[in-house]
């Protein structure tokens, strides 16, 4: 069986800006997480997969079709595009029904009702979208992607703007959709989120695919990497002396109201730091990861990926 999503040697550039660079992957049934910081090229990839733009180089196939030349692919493809766009003058039900009809669903009214029920939006379904919270809007957007029962789902940051309870519910829903055998590609810039949904993770940095594997594997890769943590404490000197005895700590810099720790193993530091503080009776006011955001971790990953022969 051919993979639902086949991206082969795809590059995309806008003028001088390279958005995607020689990206290749094939999907498997189940949830695939697309992890990358803002501007890494995730939405550009979704645009290509949905047929909204053509690759500057390479080929994109969705269910064996070229989505650029064949809008019929949308009968079998569900898309939650970037942002929170919805027609403000339509009700949730009208929105989902219209889009289901526009994708050739035989009974759009029933399909819309079922999809709205799936995302828990039955009660407000007949209210205008205009007054909806961001979470509710995202729900409607998810419902329209499900209404035509597609084999493939492309979800661009579907958890953005949701509160924790909604996030949990949607993570569950997305897992369930994957377990039903659908091919789900879901993007996020938060590793922990992707971890809970995906069987497989693609990490994209500056338009390049730099890592691919199970969430645990990618997690380990990230944990191994060096990181910098800022610690605010009442006794920086005392803590600094203790930290320097740890083998994973490379250096400690003191500043006005705290210290900056460079470590080769962030996971180790986060487990050892509270223990040290308790032992030394030092108060920790704040522990702030610096340069631990995905972007710098990814940059490092990119560098190592290049070192490995790219």
């Amino acid at each position, binding site marked *: 069986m051919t993979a639902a999503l086949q991206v082969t040697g795809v590059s995309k550039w806008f003028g001088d800006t390279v958005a995607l660079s020689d990206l290749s992957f094939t999907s498997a049934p189940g949830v695939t997480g697309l992890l990358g910081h803002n501007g890494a090229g995730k939405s550009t990839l979704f645009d290509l997969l949905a047929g909204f733009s053509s690759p500057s180089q390479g080929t994109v196939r969705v269910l064996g079709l070229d989505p650029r030349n064949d809008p*019929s692919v949308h009968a079998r493809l569900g898309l939650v595009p970037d942002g929170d*766009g919805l*027609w403000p003058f339509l009700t949730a039900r009208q929105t989902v029904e219209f889009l289901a009809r526009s994708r050739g669903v035989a009974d759009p009214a029933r399909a819309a009702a079922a999809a709205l029920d799936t995302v828990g939006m039955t009660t407000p379904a007949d209210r205008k979208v205009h007054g909806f919270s961001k979470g509710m809007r995202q729900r409607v957007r998810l419902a329209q992607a499900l209404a035509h029962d597609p084999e493939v789902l492309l979800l661009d940051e579907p958890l953005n703007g949701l509160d924790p309870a909604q996030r949990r519910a949607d993570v569950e829903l997305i897992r369930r959709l994957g377990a039903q055998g659908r091919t789900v590609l879901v993007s996020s810039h938060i590793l922990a989120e992707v971890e809970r949904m995906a069987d497989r993770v693609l990490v994209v940095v500056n338009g390049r695919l730099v890592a691919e594997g199970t969430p645990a594997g990618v997690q380990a890769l990230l944990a191994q990497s060096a990181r910098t943590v800022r610690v605010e404490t009442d006794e920086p000197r005392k803590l600094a002396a203790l930290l320097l005895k740890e083998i994973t700590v490379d250096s400690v810099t003191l500043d006005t109201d705290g210290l900056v720790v460079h470590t080769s193993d962030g996971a180790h530091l986060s487990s050892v730091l509270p223990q040290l503080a308790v032992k030394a009776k030092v108060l920790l006011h704040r522990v702030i990861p610096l340069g631990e955001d995905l972007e710098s971790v990814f940059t490092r990953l990119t560098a190592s990926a290049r070192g490995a022969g790219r």
Partner: protein
Amino acid sequence: MTLLQLSLRSVVRGKRMVFVALLPLLVGLVAVLLAVNAGDTDRTDPYGVLAGELLLPLVLALVALILGVNAFGDERDERTLGLLLATTLSRPRIVLTKYAAAAAVTWLACLPATLGCLVLATKTELPFGEAAVSLLVASLLAALAYSALFVLLSLVLRRAVLVGLAYLVLWEGLLAELAVAFRNLSVGAYAARVVGAPFDDVPFNASDGSVVTAVVLLVVVAVVGVAASAWRLPRAHL
């Protein structure tokens, strides 16, 4: 909800519809007042000026600009274009439907002014039937041509309202007034030529050439504009 219903709902909502509805209503009112106050003397000139120089090249053009530019402008601003395109609807059909909705509402919104002008036309020596057909056809063709231009403009440029306004004021307004050569490159002048069909000698600015030429050119502008928009939509980086 179908694509046409969605397009129509999208066109007629919001505060701009107040402006779009009031402006032609005002012109219609002025026309009726002029008709009521007219004596038995020949009132050909006010009719010509109102219908040929105010209604079509200015009022209807403005309404077409506001509605045409927003046909896709709203989809862009509200970020719904991704949803609209994530359907099996053919791209030409999406363009054609949104365009048809904008053009139809443009023509309907201007109908009070058009009818007002026709009331005024009864006070002229023009054969009424001929004047009525000319004006109704001219306003329909102008709505089709202007809407096609402005839908296309919004798919090509981000600042389509400003550029469209500049085009109407400078190109269609000023240049067409100044030189006959420019007048023959103005949608408004061709529409005015159709309005002027019943006149022996058109008493307002209009294109040279025959009425048939004017009709054909307006249709060509509409068809080419829509075709270009259909080509452009999948390529527009909105």
